[in-house]
């Protein structure tokens, strides 16, 4: 059952049906404020409650992760970076504690992104836009900036008064202080970003004496600017106009998704209520607008589920405060489903269905990708082998009738220690390996590869006279005590002379 919540609130001034030409309408619009709409300022009022507390806690956790992570040290041998989390573009490495990824292993990052997307789909289908309301950097930093704004300018009413008031010393220092602190936070945000890409203590020192990379200054400036503008000025407009996620939501949510919901079945008919009046024959909503003034997105949740809503629950906290005051049960606005509201509206018991085909296949896809990733990480060899076979010439016939093929073995050692690997060749019987400048060896060859490096080793395979003619499948294996890698290739013995 699909529930359509009717949001018919047509502006009576705009419903006229008198014929007007398109040009006249453009002129009318321009007269009313233009073809462009200025942002209507939103002054969210501070609320207290369960969801607000969770939001504060998550803000502290996420910001702490962001600012502390680059400063965690991690001991690695052989002159490798000592930073636990480091995206080393210059060296082409991603370090994450004990793991290091090479550019050719970028599929692990892809897998992680797929997992994140699937997790987001699943959470959205189950609980709505929790990411938007609690964890998205746009939300977290905007929340932090509003906290600063409140500290300087006071709560909603004080801020509205201040904005309306003519310029004065009081207004000036409050505004200046707010913007200074905002800029400080923005600079701290942009500054912390670069620590993820360079050795943090080094780049911190280098930054102040003008010795950091140009990119460090550029990205610091860029993220400082975007933080200041997005969290200070753009705020909900980022979510409404820039972010694609609210649009994608539509495909994830259904009537069984838990979302911040105004329980219209209980709230209507709404209206002012005086102390001592009866609650019979009316809804619990006293139309106090507490939910509207608390909303950081500037919407009225009582209009139903809408694009702008980030599911943060601040309106629920605001409403609960009011319900406590008027002595009605909490939860007039709460995480609920459209289906439940519709069921209660017709007097049926609300049914909550967390297990639905949609959640099952999101969970299935998430589990599949997670298992794939874990399997990939667990079975990841620190050795990797690629064999480039000489194609010009394909083979060289020696004086004694033996045939020699040339190969370049690219042996990658992704460990933090140098490795000596033995190179084994599976090919024609009696074939021997040899490197330039050394006599042929009957057994396996030993090749040393530096820590965290690729060694290109030139290796020749000499097959005795009488090896089966033509190209045949063959393979190289490199191994040491712990790891091994294998690569298929071809041994071409040519045509018999």
């Amino acid at each position, binding site marked *: 059952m699909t529930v359509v919540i009717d949001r018919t609130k047509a502006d009576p001034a705009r419903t006229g049906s008198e014929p*007007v030409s398109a040009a006249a*309408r453009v002129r009318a*619009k321009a007269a009313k404020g233009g073809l462009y*709409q200025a942002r209507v300022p939103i002054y969210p009022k501070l609320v207290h409650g369960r969801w607000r507390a969770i939001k504060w806690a998550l803000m502290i956790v996420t910001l702490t992760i962001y600012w502390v992570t680059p400063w965690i040290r991690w001991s690695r041998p052989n002159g490798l970076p000592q930073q636990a989390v480091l995206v080393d573009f210059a060296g082409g490495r991603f370090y994450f504690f004990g793991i290091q990824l090479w550019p050719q292993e970028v599929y692990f990052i892809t897998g992680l992104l797929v997992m994140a997307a699937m997790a987001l789909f699943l959470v959205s289908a189950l609980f709505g836009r929790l990411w938007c309301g609690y964890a998205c950097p746009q939300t977290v930093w905007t929340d932090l900036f509003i906290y600063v704004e409140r500290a300087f300018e006071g709560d909603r009413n004080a801020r509205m008064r201040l904005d309306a008031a003519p310029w004065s010393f009081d207004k000036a220092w409050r505004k200046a202080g707010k913007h200074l602190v905002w800029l400080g936070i923005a600079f701290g945000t942009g500054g912390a970003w670069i620590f993820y890409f360079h050795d943090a203590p080094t780049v911190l020192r280098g930054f102040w004496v003008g010795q950091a990379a140009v990119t460090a200054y550029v990205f610091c400036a860029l993220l400082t600017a975007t933080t200041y503008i997005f969290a200070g000025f753009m705020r909900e407009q980022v979510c409404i106009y820039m972010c694609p996620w609210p649009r994608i939501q539509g495909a994830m949510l259904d009537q069984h998704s838990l979302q911040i919901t105004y329980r219209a079945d209980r709230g209507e008919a709404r209206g002012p209520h005086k102390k001592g009046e009866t609650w019979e024959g009316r809804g619990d909503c006293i139309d106090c607008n507490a939910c509207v003034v608390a909303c950081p997105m500037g919407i009225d949740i009582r209009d139903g589920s809408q694009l702008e809503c980030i599911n943060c629950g601040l309106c629920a906290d605001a409403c609960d405060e009011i319900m406590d005051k008027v002595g009605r049960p909490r939860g007039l606005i709460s995480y609920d489903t459209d289906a439940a509201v519709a069921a209660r509206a017709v007097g049926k018991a609300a049914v909550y269905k967390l297990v639905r085909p949609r959640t099952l296949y999101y969970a299935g896809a998430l589990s599949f990708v997670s298992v794939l990733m874990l399997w990939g990480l667990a079975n990841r060899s620190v050795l990797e082998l690629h064999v480039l076979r000489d194609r010009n010439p394909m083979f060289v016939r020696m004086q004694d009738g033996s045939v020699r093929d040339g190969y370049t073995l690219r042996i990658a050692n992704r460990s933090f220690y140098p490795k000596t690997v033995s190179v084994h060749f599976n090919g024609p019987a009696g074939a021997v390996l040899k490197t330039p*400048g050394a006599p042929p060896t009957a057994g396996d060859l030993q090749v040393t590869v530096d820590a965290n490096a690729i060694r290109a080793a030139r290796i020749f395979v000499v097959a005795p006279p009488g090896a089966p003619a033509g190209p045949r499948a063959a393979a190289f294996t490199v191994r040491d005590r712990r790891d091994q890698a294998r690569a298929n290739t071809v041994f071409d013995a040519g045509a018999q002379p």
Partner: protein
Amino acid sequence: MSERKIDGPTGVETTEHEWDGIRELDNPLPRWWLWTWYATIAAAVVYWVLMPAWPGLHGYTRGVLHQSDRVKVVHDLADLKALRGAEGAQLQTASLEQIERDPKLQAYAMAAGQALFGDNCATCHGQGGTGGKGYPNLRDDVWLWGGSLEQIQHTITYGVRTGEPGAANTQMPAFGRDQMLKDGQIDDLTEYVLALSRRPANPAAAARATPLFAEQCASCHGPLGKGDQARGIPNLTDSEWLYGSRREDIRDQIVNGRGGVMPTWGKRFDPQTIKALTVYIHANAGGQ
């Protein structure tokens, strides 16, 4: 036509454009969007001032930053040269054996050698170094002038039959063209040479040519026809034939006595360049 259409659920006027029953809402653009547009225009103007932008009749506006990709390439090339300086210097001091044994130096020499070989040697010896008729194969284990590192270095440095000091100038006589031998004698010698490399030959003719070979050929090719690498004299008993292995090829060589020329690369390249080429050729030939 121009009656105002209001969308029911939102109460917003529509543009009257309709696609399969879906009408476009005529919401006003947010004003910041307009400001973003102005900002891009301002950025474009700043770009014109800073960077090369406008074409003119005699060139283009250079911009105050004097940005030029051509200049940047020159700088990058200079940087690259400086970067290579360290390894180039190492190449200069290290011996050929040291280069071949040090994986890093060898990789550097091989990379440099590959480019040098393609630019300078591949014209005759082929991109893969397998040569052709008259041009020796540098990949196999037969070497006219010797296949050790030092011998290869020497051959590259001084060249072959250039007349320069240091270069070998051995030249096979044109026995037929200069009428030193008669046609019948040349036929017999051809059979003898075929027999030397254990290939089907007329035994009677070969036997007839035995004293002729000792008289005319053994002074250079040796009594057994094994040749002499020091003077670049080919071994006639192996399976490698620079000018072809067919009966008519061998006869043609006795008649005309051809000998190829290789430039004196020492006059064009500095020693480390020749070292890199030497290591590249030696390594690709399996390294004797």
